[in-house]
């Protein structure tokens, strides 16, 4: 009876080790997917703010919009009136909004927020647009962030390359740890394997239960890891609101396809791990 309980414990240890190994790998994939997603988004679209000298009336806005739609890949996000700008500033200030009460006049400019798509507009578009718009008598200034993005993308390229290398190594490490763990659990049952063979069991009869066990262990390990990662993700998105000056992070979780793929992979790793580990005995 004690033996049974112990055996279960050995399995639990095995599954625990596996989940941690998987978790490290999965967490890395999650971070990587997010970086990818984010640079993709940032790299393809570029947001531009058109600040007006005075509060424009709707005719003026329509005019500007018409002018904009001549260019490909331009999307008008929203018009922010002076009042809207003030409201959003108040919201951001929170408790300290009282500071704004003393103002006699609203100093904030009205603006039109638009995005440009690199795919359609080409690299030169933002500059052309800025130049053209700033000639207009109603427009005060045009801001955009492409210069920054270009440098940032260079770093991101490097991060991507480093990421793929590191991810690959991490995968190998997880595979190694998992195979070793399975090996150790199988070692603890070495004698049983020998007895089974002496009693006339074929290799398949002995191996198949271990392989099934390894696959199930892999599946459970992978599932536990994914669950832990999901919990961490939930905590992260509710607690942390990472905003880096220019844009706020929108953390995404792994897509269902990736999840399915990872679970399948964990089963396969468990299966391969036990098959490799069994090799010694046959």
């Amino acid at each position, binding site marked *: 009876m004690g*033996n049974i309980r112990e*055996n279960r414990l050995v399995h639990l240890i095995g599954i625990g080790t596996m989940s941690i190994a998987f978790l490290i790998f999965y967490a890395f994939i999650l971070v990587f997917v997010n970086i990818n997603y984010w640079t993709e988004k940032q790299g393809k679209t570029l947001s531009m703010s058109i600040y007006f000298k005075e509060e424009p009336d709707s005719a003026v806005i329509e005019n500007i919009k018409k002018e904009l739609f001549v260019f490909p890949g331009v999307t008008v996000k929203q018009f922010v009136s002076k009042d809207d700008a003030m409201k959003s500033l108040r919201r951001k200030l929170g408790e300290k909004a009282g500071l704004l009460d003393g103002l006699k006049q609203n100093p904030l400019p009205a603006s039109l927020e638009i995005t440009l798509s690199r795919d359609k507009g080409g690299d030169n578009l933002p500059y052309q647009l800025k130049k053209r718009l700033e000639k207009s008598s109603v427009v005060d200034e045009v801001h955009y962030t492409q210069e920054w993005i270009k440098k940032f993308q260079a770093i991101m390229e490097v991060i991507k390359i480093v990421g793929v290398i590191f991810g690959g190594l991490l995968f190998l490490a997880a595979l190694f740890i998992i195979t070793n763990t399975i090996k150790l659990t199988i070692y603890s049952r070495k004698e*049983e394997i020998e*007895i*089974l063979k*002496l*009693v*006339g*069991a*074929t290799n398949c009869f002995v191996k198949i239960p271990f392989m099934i066990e390894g696959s199930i262990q892999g599946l459970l390990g992978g599932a536990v890891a994914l669950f832990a990662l999901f919990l961490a993700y939930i905590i992260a998105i509710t607690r942390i609101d990472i905003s880096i000056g220019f844009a706020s992070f929108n953390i995404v979780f792994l897509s269902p396809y990736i999840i399915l793929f990872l679970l399948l992979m964990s089963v396969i790793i468990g299966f391969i791990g036990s098959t490799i580990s069994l090799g010694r005995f046959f």
Partner: protein
Amino acid sequence: MIQLFQVYKNFGSKNPALLDINLTVKKGEFVFITGPSGAGKTTLLKIIFCAERPTSGNVLVHGRNLNRIKERDLSLLRRRIGVVFQDFKLLPRRNVFENVALALEIIGFPLPMIRKKVHQTLRYLSLTNKEGYYPPQLSGGEQQRVAIARAIVNNPLILLADEPTGNLDPDLTMEIMALLKEIHIRGTTVLVATHSKELLKGTTRRIVTLNKGRIV
């Protein structure tokens, strides 16, 4: 049924465990193998069972030369040989029923048949009330009887019993001997390794005596 030709077994020390063994056991024979401790009895049985390979010489079991047998055929052959190991070799994580049922599971018996045969065999060996116990929970003699049960449950062609009564009291020893005789009468070739004088006393069976690896 079993033939050994000039079998030598050397484990690497100066004194070989078996020296020039020539032995023929015919189908349906009942043979005792005896000799002092370390004489080579267990080694001889292991070689017949292909748990050890001879250093030189040939072994034929049920018409098959063990030097040239394939992995798969070896499993098939072993299923037809029942073995009572000197150290029992029970699976510690399976209970008595499962340990005995194993020998039938491997052959692919249907479950109801397995149940019936296992219960019957355990009854023979007065183990009915230990069915759910795990080997570490059994007394030495009980473990030995489970090992015997596993060896005979599938009516093997050959039964190799290594010191099958070393942990049993005289009454049980007589019962086991009666059981072995019954199995023998049903057609099984039986080899029993023992140094018990009691077992050998007054027997008319063939006795092979080993000493320092030689048949004397």
